[in-house]
């Protein structure tokens, strides 16, 4: 009764199920400032959407969710446009570079192996670091002297970079080069792993750009919005894999979810947010690790997806 046919995916889906999935991922997106691609794409594949269509249509729905989320965070004063634009410039350059890197890796024949290993290691490292750090902060334990020494050295180093400028919204003074270079780094990783990069960008903003957590969430969503606009148009043009009906149902759920997410985000403390995101990242990492270790049910797979 509640089924709709998806012409590009070539399958029919239960509208309520897709709406619910969209809503759930939208809430997470609004709370943490991540696109949610690393969660949504595998879920869509599980319900019978071809991997390439799942990934591309998800980018399309993230455009809607991040528009909604960015606006919600903007009204709360949580978007640093200056930082966001600089990260975006770096991200586009890094993404383009990353696509070339992946081409070379594919020619060498071990791309899939490197992608999976990078994925698990990045998720494991980022998740564990955030988890431990925010747990310590929540327990109000002061970081050790060595750690603060390291941080001050890092601060000295970035203080020496040219073109220092104030980022009022984030309350930090940094070189213009910092967000651009880090944007390139995230862009390369995101292109290699085939994801939007939100879950790498958030820790980078928190720990390397020293931005307050709430501004990080809003700014990350702002940056993801533009990345996913680019991906949607490119995927539609080159691969014809964007299923608009699928994206539309997902985004009705996710844009609504993003609004609630943004409100929940405001009620939580920065460290609570970090520990929740860290837990989510670690759960995804464990799931991926199990996929690598357990014998698959079918020894063949369709191309595409993450």
């Amino acid at each position, binding site marked *: 009764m509640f089924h709709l046919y998806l012409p590009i995916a070539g399958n029919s889906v239960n509208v309520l199920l897709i709406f619910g999935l969209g809503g759930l991922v939208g809430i997470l997106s609004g709370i943490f400032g991540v696109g949610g691609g690393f969660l949504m794409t595998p879920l869509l594949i599980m319900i019978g959407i071809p991997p390439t269509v799942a990934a591309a249509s998800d980018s399309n729905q993230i455009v809607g969710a991040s528009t909604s989320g960015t606006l*919600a965070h903007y009204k709360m*004063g949580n978007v640093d446009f200056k930082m966001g634009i600089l990260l975006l410039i770096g991200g586009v350059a890094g993404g383009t570079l990353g696509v070339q890197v992946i081409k070379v890796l594919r020619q060498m024949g071990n791309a899939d192996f490197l992608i999976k290993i990078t994925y698990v290691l990045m998720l494991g490292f980022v998740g564990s670091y955030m988890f431990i750090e925010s747990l310590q902060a929540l327990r109000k334990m002061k970081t050790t002297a060595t750690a603060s020494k390291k941080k001050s050295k890092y601060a000295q180093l970035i203080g020496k970079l040219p073109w220092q400028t104030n980022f009022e919204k984030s309350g930090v003074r940094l070189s213009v080069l910092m967000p651009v270079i880090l944007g390139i780094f995230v862009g390369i990783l995101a292109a290699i792993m085939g994801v939007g990069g939100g879950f790498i960008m958030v820790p980078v903003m928190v720990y390397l750009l020293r931005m307050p957590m709430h501004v990080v969430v809003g700014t990350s969503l702002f940056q993801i919005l533009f990345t996913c606009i680019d991906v949607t148009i490119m995927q539609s043009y080159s691969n014809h894999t964007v299923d608009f009906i699928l994206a539309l149902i997902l985004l009705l759920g996710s844009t609504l979810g993003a609004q609630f997410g943004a409100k929940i985000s405001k009620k939580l403390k920065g460290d609570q947010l970090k520990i929740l995101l860290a837990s989510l990242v670690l759960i995804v990492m464990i799931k991926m690790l199990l996929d690598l270790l*357990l014998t698959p049910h079918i020894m063949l797979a369709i191309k595409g997806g993450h």
Partner: protein
Amino acid sequence: MIRNRIWMSVIIMTMYFMCLPKPACSTVSVKAKHEPNLITISAFFNGTQLKVSGKIATENEVVVIVKGKQEELTLKKKGKALGFLWMNLGDVHFKKVPNLYILYSSEGMMELAASDVITWEQLGIGFESLKKEMEIEAPKAKRDALANEFFKLKQNQGLYASHPGEISFGQKNEKNKSFTASIWIPPQIPTGEYQIRVIEIHNGQIADNSIDQLKVKEEGIPLMLSSLAFNHSVLYGFLAVLIAVSAGLAMDFFFGTGKGGAH
């Protein structure tokens, strides 16, 4: 002289055809029809039932196969990296594999198969017989296992299915009996033409068979969207973005805080 040779050739040809083995005994030839003849995929399409019905000789069994056009597929092969990590390792090319293969049979076929009178492979039907048709670019020793994995993947996708014993018989008399197969056509069915083959089995041999065509096409919104996506892909991409942004703005308008900029 030439005229004699022509006559001789005609006689030899006629005798040759007369000596060809006849199909196994069947008192009536299979008569089948299906409904609908055309499946249209509209916005609310969620798979459909295809009804194949007809008459066969009273003592015989029946098999119905819906088969799609042959295609080529490249799939990822899973293997162990570093001896313990399961991941996609290389491609496998499959050629001459149907894009859809659905088999229904009457209950008696299961008994025949169980009693070793026939094997599906000998009759040229079922997944095992597809192995003979398909070409797999892999070492010979690995082909059988790869074919089995291929069938598993296709069954998982809902595009291959086997329903033994699911054709029911209705009215019967001394000569013939009626059969009905309610075939589930999955929503994943690609558009195109399909072959419906009804096979009548007598004592483990093919007594007769009939072949008919089924057409599947899109209409309405699905047709409009697929032609836009494939023929005007840039426009499609921009529209997809525009609608997503509009939905985001609308949600913010209806459900957002609406307090305006905070800076």
